[in-house]
């Protein structure tokens, strides 16, 4: 009875196994786990882990009190409104997922209803992509920002606390004051922490806890992760500084630093940097779009665009897009459509072209998403294309058009990501 499914599953498993066999162990993870096993066993860690402490009954009593308190708090929080925010000195209401760009010569303030303040430095670009009752998620595309986050007193079930994404880095925040910056072209991440603590997820797969007074200077392409005192300027390029130049520096951790990053510690010699001969495709697939873009520019973007396979040209477009080069991204996606017409890759390129046009030319974006749907109506991107078509229509000032878009969306995706919004739109239209 299950022959078809079982065969499909076996084939998938074989394909996955073939790919898994080619994967090397992740040395950064291995090193981190080695250190983690030691840290866990120290008396302080064991104490935090609850391995020595009160008796079982006392623990149970405490747990009961905590659970009841949490439940009461959750009830209160459940009914609290989501945060809102304003942008600019005039206090204009912010629109979720809209890009906010600071002018070339002035900062751009963003104020949240819980008192959290963010200031984008001149030329920085960011957007708020999710907002909850006790936090929000931001993407800083490029530039620096100062964040003064009001401490989160509770964690709302089903919601993320404050989270800031910068390229391959993510900063989890509970309540703190810090500066953070990301330069996608140079692949440079920096964070200066003035108060509280944050957890930074880097491209090595590790989670690093930082405390006040610490700063991070990191780069994925150079496999660089340095913890330094706050205010330390960004290091010169690795070529100028010498890859091992900082290895002998003493660590700048404050005495109360709770956790060490999995990067090489000062007690151990820093391993020699790995050979840097990876292809731009490999770098891009690792999420290192900055170095990938540099590499492909060095070898010739246009030539790669014309000779690579469909999937690689798509990747080329993604790499250019994520480096802010919309023209080259558009060229690459257009090349896919020209060189591989009628293929799933061409439909995906149409989708990507739609994505590029969303903020600048809504009509063009709509046409591209419709092309994607026409060419691959059951393709994996079809639901996302419908989502975007609905979003674009929802932005329209034409009420009838919005309602029609909601009706069409619900017909196609009664359980889609925007189903609730679509229903709200239709309900609002009913007398």
């Amino acid at each position, binding site marked *: 009875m299950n022959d078809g499914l079982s*065969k499909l599953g076996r084939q998938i498993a074989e*394909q996955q196994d073939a790919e898994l066999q*080619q994967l090397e162990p992740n040395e950064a993870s291995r090193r981190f786990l*080695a250190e983690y*096993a030691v840290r866990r066993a120290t008396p302080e860690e064991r104490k935090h882990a609850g391995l020595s402490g009160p008796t079982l009954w006392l623990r149970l009593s405490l747990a009961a009190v905590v659970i009841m308190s949490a439940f009461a708090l959750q009830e209160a929080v459940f009914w609290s409104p989501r945060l809102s925010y304003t942008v600019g000195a005039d206090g204009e209401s912010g629109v979720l997922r809209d890009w906010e760009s600071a002018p070339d010569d002035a900062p751009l303030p963003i104020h949240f209803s819980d008192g959290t303040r963010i200031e984008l430095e001149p030329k920085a670009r960011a957007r708020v992509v999710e907002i909850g009752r006790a936090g929000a998620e931001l993407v800083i595309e490029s530039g620096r920002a100062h964040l003064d986050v009001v401490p989160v007193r509770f964690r709302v079930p089903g919601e*993320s606390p404050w989270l800031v994404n910068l390229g391959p880095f993510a900063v989890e925040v509970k309540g703190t004051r810090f500066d953070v910056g990301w330069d996608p072209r140079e692949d440079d991440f920096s964070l200066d922490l003035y108060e509280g603590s944050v957890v930074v997820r880097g491209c090595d*797969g590790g989670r690093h806890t930082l405390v006040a007074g610490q700063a991070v200077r990191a780069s994925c392409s150079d496999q660089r992760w340095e913890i330094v005192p706050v205010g330390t300027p960004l290091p010169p390029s690795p070529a100028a500084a010498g890859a091992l130049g900082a290895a002998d520096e003493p660590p700048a951790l404050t005495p109360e630093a709770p956790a060490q990053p999995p990067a090489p510690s000062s007690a151990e010699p820093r391993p020699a940097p790995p050979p840097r001969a990876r292809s731009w495709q490999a770098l891009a697939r690792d999420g290192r779009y900055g170095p990938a873009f540099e590499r492909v520019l060095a070898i010739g973007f246009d030539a790669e665009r014309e000779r690579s396979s469909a999937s690689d040209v798509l990747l080329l477009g993604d790499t250019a897009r994520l480096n802010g080069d919309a023209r080259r991204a558009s060229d690459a996606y257009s090349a896919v459509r020209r060189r591989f017409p009628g293929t799933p890759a061409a439909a995906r390129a149409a989708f990507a072209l739609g994505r590029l046009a969303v903020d600048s030319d809504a009509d063009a974006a709509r046409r591209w998403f419709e092309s994607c749907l026409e060419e691959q109506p059951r393709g*994996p991107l079809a639901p996302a294309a419908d989502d975007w078509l609905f979003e674009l229509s929802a932005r329209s000032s034409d009420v009838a058009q919005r309602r029609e878009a909601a009706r069409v969306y619900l017909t196609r995706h009664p359980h889609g990501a925007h189903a609730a919004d679509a229903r709200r739109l239709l309900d609002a239209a009913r007398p």
Partner: protein
Amino acid sequence: MRVADEPQSRDVEPRRSAVVHLPLSDSDAGVVAAIRAGERAGGAALYDRHHQYVRRVLVRVLGPDADLQDLVQDVFVAAIDSIDRLADAGALRGWLAAISVNCVRMELRRRTRRRIIRLLPPSEVPDVAVAARDRELDAALRVTYHVLGRLAADERIVFALRFIEGMELMAIAEVCQVSVATTKRRLVSARRKFINMARAYPELVDWVKDEAP
């Protein structure tokens, strides 16, 4: 075994004693004891011995995924954190599978909450090796995980473990820490939903055309 074969490696060398206190080389019991004793080599050996298995369990459920490496590490961190609760060191592998399933479940639920802000569906994450081994199968794989992405986390897990990993019901129940009856119920539901959805995709229709929903 990496730790055993490389006695001069950084993991063991700093301990200058001539005596190796714990037998780490070939047994899970030795690895567990080393972690409990706070030996650096214990954490490394745990990873060396089981990272492929953990990765396999995760990839079966998640499919091609950019966060796989993060999740592998999360599984091992959770394992080290709770190593004192492992009663039988010989059951380490199954225990890691259970932790993997737990981690992947949490990850799937987190993604479900955040799905609305995704710019691309999971099947389009561009870091997957899509070399042209078998394009049809590659497409089927991608669409399979796209469809699985529409199932509830618990149903997706049992489906992947049963049909892709090929585990028996009892083993699935064990790693999911639920009864066999619950496992069976989830599997029936997941299978029915998967078949119904898969019929809408040309990449899968041949695989499920003879399946009764």
